[in-house]
Structures are given as structure tokens and as C-alpha cells.
């Protein structure tokens, strides 16, 4: 394998790997936003999921159980958020943002209590890359496409499932109606509150799982900066993907490619300062949602508008 080929292989493979967690979070967020709730709290939920899965895996050593715990913690935390968004009718941006600060406090407090001697961060059991027979031995695309962990394929599967549920089922129709025109949905017999709770809880489950994905398939240990804006990037991917799960998958891979560029350029030695390369995914996300490419017209009409049933 020559140098250029090696570069492409590591870059592609890392692109897909890094796209996984943000895509997962973005899929869940699509449900929340389609129901009319902008859940900014997925950043904090991811952090909670990451810590929960790390601690679970530290004590049990079982990766699937740890992933399940991350999902449950995500759902549980978002019961509170859904109550704030839907029942209290607090400003969604404010509640989500303050929730993120709250989780930062909770996570560092709990982590320090659970791991008092954190001189050297402890590593834990992880998901390993699957090597599919025949497919992984294809040149270039083989190791990149077919050398990912099972969580990556699961996430892709969930993207198709999300698309089906959102556009081909009654539940999906009711959910979208609650985000487009809640009053009309209500008179058609849809419980808007229930749909919005459902959307928020789905985004909580997905964000918790995305946190678990980060720990169990990518990093293998926990630090407080593990999420560092990936939840916010997922929010950007939802916009760039036009609130559509499959388009979000494409957007997430574009984001992953930007993020991976910095990794693979560092491996191959470059004089560009690493911090400027690290800023690339954020800058690309800013450009993607800056309105240069439109987008306002297709967002759910009742997004961020609390619904009051008379």
C-alpha cells in the first residue's frame, strides 16, 4: 500500500467512525424537532450517557449492558427535560442550555466520587471492529467501510428505521403533525403533549446511546471534555439534513470527514497547527447552518413554540 492509499484508507475509515455518535444523536433529535421541541439538552444527555456507560463498563465489564444503561440514563434525564419543555412550557433554549450546565456539574461530581484516584484514567472493555469476510479485504473501501464496530452498522440501520417510522407510520404522522400544526393535530385526536414527550424521550435515548458509543467504541475511557460540542454539532446536522434521517446520515458523514481530516493529517505529518484543524468541523457546521444554503423554510413550523391546549 503506498502513502496516498494509506492516507485515504485511514481518512475514510475515521470519517465513518467519527460520524457514528453524532449521527445517532441527530437521529433522535430529528424526532424531538419534528414533534416541535428543540432539545438543546442532548449535549448534556450525551455526557451523562458517556459517564453512565463508562462506570457501568468499569464495574461489570459488559459492553452491551453498559450501552443499555447509557440509553436508560438518557431517557430518565429527558423525562425531566420533557416536563420542562412540554408541561412547564419553559423556553426550550433556556431549559436545555441550563440543563447542560447542570449535567456538567453532576458528571464531574459523580466521576470524582466514583474514581477518586484519577491520576491515570482507567481504560475499559470496548466494542471491537468487525472484520467481515471477503468485504474487509477489498482494497481501500474494504477496511474503511467494512472494518467498523457493530455500533456503526446499528446506527446506519437505525437511520433507515427512523426514516420508516417518521414517514411511513401513524405514529410518525402524528409526531410530525404535532410539530407542524399542533392545534390541527389536536382536533384530529392526536395528543400533542404525548407526542412531544415521545419525541423528547426518543432524543434522550439516542443521545444517551451516543454518549455510550463515544466511550465504548471510540475512546475507551472517560474525561469531562469527551463530548465537547458534539451534541451541538448533531443539532446542526439535523438542520443540514433538513429534518430527514437519511439526509442527516449523509450530513453526519460530511462532518465526520472534516473531523477525521485532522486525525489523518496529524498521522502523516503536516505543518498546519492542530488547533486550526480541530476547528474545522465547527466552522463547517457554522457554514452549513448559516443560512447560506437556505433551510428556514423547511423547519417544523411549530418548532420551539410551546403548545397550550384550550
Amino acid at each position, binding site marked *: 500500500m503506498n502513502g496516498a492509499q494509506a492516507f485515504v484508507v485511514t481518512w475514510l475509515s475515521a470519517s465513518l467512525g467519527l460520524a457514528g455518535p453524532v449521527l445517532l444523536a441527530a437521529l433522535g433529535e430529528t424526532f424531538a424537532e419534528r414533534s416541535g421541541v428543540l432539545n438543546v439538552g442532548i449535549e448534556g444527555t450525551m455526557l451523562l450517557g458517556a459517564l453512565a456507560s463508562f462506570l457501568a463498563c468499569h464495574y461489570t465489564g459488559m459492553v452491551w449492558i453498559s450501552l443499555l444503561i447509557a440509553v436508560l440514563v438518557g431517557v430518565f434525564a429527558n423525562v425531566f427535560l420533557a416536563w420542562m419543555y412540554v408541561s*412547564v412550557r419553559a423556553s426550550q433554549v433556556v431549559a436545555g442550555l441550563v440543563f447542560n450546565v447542570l449535567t456538567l456539574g453532576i458528571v464531574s*461530581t459523580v466521576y470524582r466520587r466514583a474514581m477518586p484516584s484519577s491520576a491515570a484514567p482507567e481504560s475499559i472493555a470496548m466494542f471491537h471492529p468487525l472484520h467481515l469476510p471477503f468485504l474487509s479485504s477489498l482494497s481501500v473501501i474494504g477496511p474503511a467501510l467494512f472494518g467498523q464496530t457493530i455500533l456503526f452498522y446499528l446506527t446506519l440501520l437505525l437511520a433507515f428505521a427512523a426514516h420508516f417510522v417518521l414517514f411511513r407510520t401513524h405514529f410518525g404522522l402524528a409526531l410530525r403533525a404535532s410539530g407542524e400544526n399542533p392545534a390541527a393535530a389536536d382536533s384530529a385526536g392526536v395528543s400533542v403533549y404525548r407526542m412531544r414527550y415521545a419525541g423528547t424521550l426518543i432524543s434522550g435515548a439516542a443521545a444517551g446511546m451516543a454518549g455510550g458509543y463515544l466511550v465504548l467504541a471510540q475512546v475507551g475511557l472517560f474525561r469531562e471534555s469527551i463530548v465537547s460540542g458534539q451534541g*451541538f454539532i448533531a*443539532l*446542526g446536522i439535523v438542520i443540514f439534513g433538513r429534518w430527514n434521517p437519511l439526509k442527516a446520515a449523509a450530513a453526519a458523514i460530511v462532518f465526520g470527514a472534516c473531523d477525521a481530516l485532522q486525525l489523518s493529517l496529524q498521522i502523516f505529518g503536516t505543518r498546519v497547527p492542530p488547533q*486550526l484543524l480541530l476547528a474545522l468541523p465547527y466552522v463547517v457546521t*457554522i457554514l452549513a*447552518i448559516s*443560512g447560506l444554503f437556505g433551510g428556514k423554510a423547511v423547519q417544523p413550523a411549530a418548532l420551539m413554540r410551546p403548545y397550550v391546549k384550550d
Partner: protein
Amino acid sequence: MAKFIERRLTPTDSPWAILTTTAAAFLAAMLVTAFLFLFYDANPLRAYVALFHEPFATVRGFGYSLVRMSPLALIALGTIVSWRSGFSYLGFEGCFVIGATATAWLALVTSVGARIGPVPLFLFLPMAIFLGFAAGGVWAGLVAFARAQLGGNEVLISLMSNYVAILILQYLVSGPLRAPGSLPETRLLPRATWLPFVLPGTRAHAGVLIALAAAGLVWMLLQKMPLGYELIVTGFNPSAARYAGIDVKRRLLLAAFFAGGLGALAGMVEVLGSQHRLMDGISGGVGFVGIIVALLARLNPLAVIPTALLYGGMSVGADAMQRRANIPSSITFILQSLAVLLVLACDALRYYKINPSSLGRRTRQTTAGWVAK
């Protein structure tokens, strides 16, 4: 007959109701946090005494509380200007970093032997304020431009811009501005550029006065000046503002410029007043705690000062607690954010009305009924 608890059609907005619901929410947050102290095998009552004694009952500690209050208050004031103008800006962490970087750079280039040479403080300070304010204002103004001209979402763009600013800072302190040594930081800024200390025996510096002056100016802007009125109308109802002949886009840009400038002044105060050098991680979440302060002060510029003093003091107390009792200072993050969330939730209580008189009547009736039996 009036029920004991009655639902109102609209929430009451009497100051008394607002004060009691806020206090109730704060007490509830303290109650929840008390359990966390138990989790750390600490007596909650003594922990709370420790949390509030150092920052508010000792002269030295109160000086530190004032030092922490200033950046929080400035960021909260920026939040108020932008949010009341209908611009949900969340990029104060980034503005703080930009302001700190710009003024630290200015201090480094005006030191002895540098390109410009030393400048007396009475000249340096206005220069630093001007440069910091303009840098932060333009930084936030870019986001407002994306919203006003392109229709982008300012909430997300401003959140992303925080990370970009922090990475720019990391690049500068580990590259061009780095001092020899193991840590990514600049060298100590020249003493001549430090903000003078204002209270003898404490570390309280002139940044406190800057924060107080800013609170007064923002209050004047929003309450007394036609421009502030136009900003608030823009925030309340953009289409009504447009019909009234207000240039909404320009007001939005102006609000963002003020907000970013105030956020950058917070960074300036921190770097010239207390850190005296620029380093990685200088912001440490202050941009978000400042927003929380503004929310708790219900976007009122004068209420910002006591609220920021309370929150700044709590962080001083938390550090003392961490040193003495080994309770992590992150516990105050929980207390501070939970308080705001519960304040939001307790707003629902203002829909209800208690009729104590109905209670009295009912007791008499039951007594009468009992006697009749």
C-alpha cells in the same frame, strides 16, 4: 365560595410573588444539593455554612467574591441586551475568550522593549476597553449578520462559535504567544497594564467598578433611551417594530455588537484584573454561568449585580470547600443551574392564588358541624 387554592387566568406579576417563588425555588435547589453533600459524607448544614462564610463574612473572601462578580455581571448584562432585543445569543464563552486574547495581546505589545513601548495606564485602559469591546462586538456581530442577512439560526451558530474561539486561543497560547515553559500560556503581563486594586486588603480591582458602571449604562440604555426602547420593541414584536419604522436588522446587529462587547469586557477584566496572563482554559464555563445569572435576575440589569455577587461568592466558597473538606467545587454548578431550572418551573406557581380566608370559614363550619353532632 372561594376555594383555598384558585387558578388565575394570567400569572400574577407582583414583585412579592416573583420574590417568593424565586426564593422557594432556590431553597428547593439547596435541599436537593444537600443530598449530594450527604453523598460526600459531609454534614449539609456545615457545608452550606462553609459555602457562604468565606465569601460573604470575611473581608478577604468578599474581595474575591467581588473579583468573581465582575465578569459574571458583564456577561449577564450582555445576555440582557441581546435577549431583550430578540437575539438569543449564547456565544459569551467565545466573546470572553476573544476579549481576553485581544487585551492580553495589547498588553504584551505595549510592554517595555516591545513594538509600541510602555503606555501609561490612563491611556492603556481606554485603549484596552475599546479594542476588547470592538473585538467581541464584531465576533458576535458576525452571528447577527448570519441571522439578519442569511436567516441562519443564531442559537446554534453562537454555540459553535464558542469552540472556534477557544481553539483560536489554544493555538495562540501554544504557538505565537507562548512563553517559554511547560504550560500553554503567555508570559506575565507587564505590571503597568494590571487593573489597579480598589479595596485595601483585598484583591478587588477596578474591574468591579467597570461592571457597576456597565450595569448602570445598560439600565439607562434599556429604560431611558429611545434606542433601548427600539431594541426592546424589536425583541417583543419584530413585525410591529418594522411597521413603526424601526430598522430591525440594524437594531439586531447593534444589540449583538453591544452584547459581544460586554462579553469581551468580561474577558478583559479577568485577564488584566485577576489572571495577569493569558492561558488555555481561562473561560472555564463563565460564559454560561453568566447567562444563568441573567436569567435568575429575570433580565433586569440592576438585579444582575446582587445576583452575580451571590453566584461569584458561591464559587469562592466552593473553592474553599474543596480545599478544606475535599468536596469538589463542581457541586456548586449543580446548585447554581438547578436553582434556575426550578425558578423556571416555579413560575407555574404564579398562576395560583391562595385564599386564607376560605380556610378560616371552612374550619368554623366543620367545627359547627362537629358540635351539632
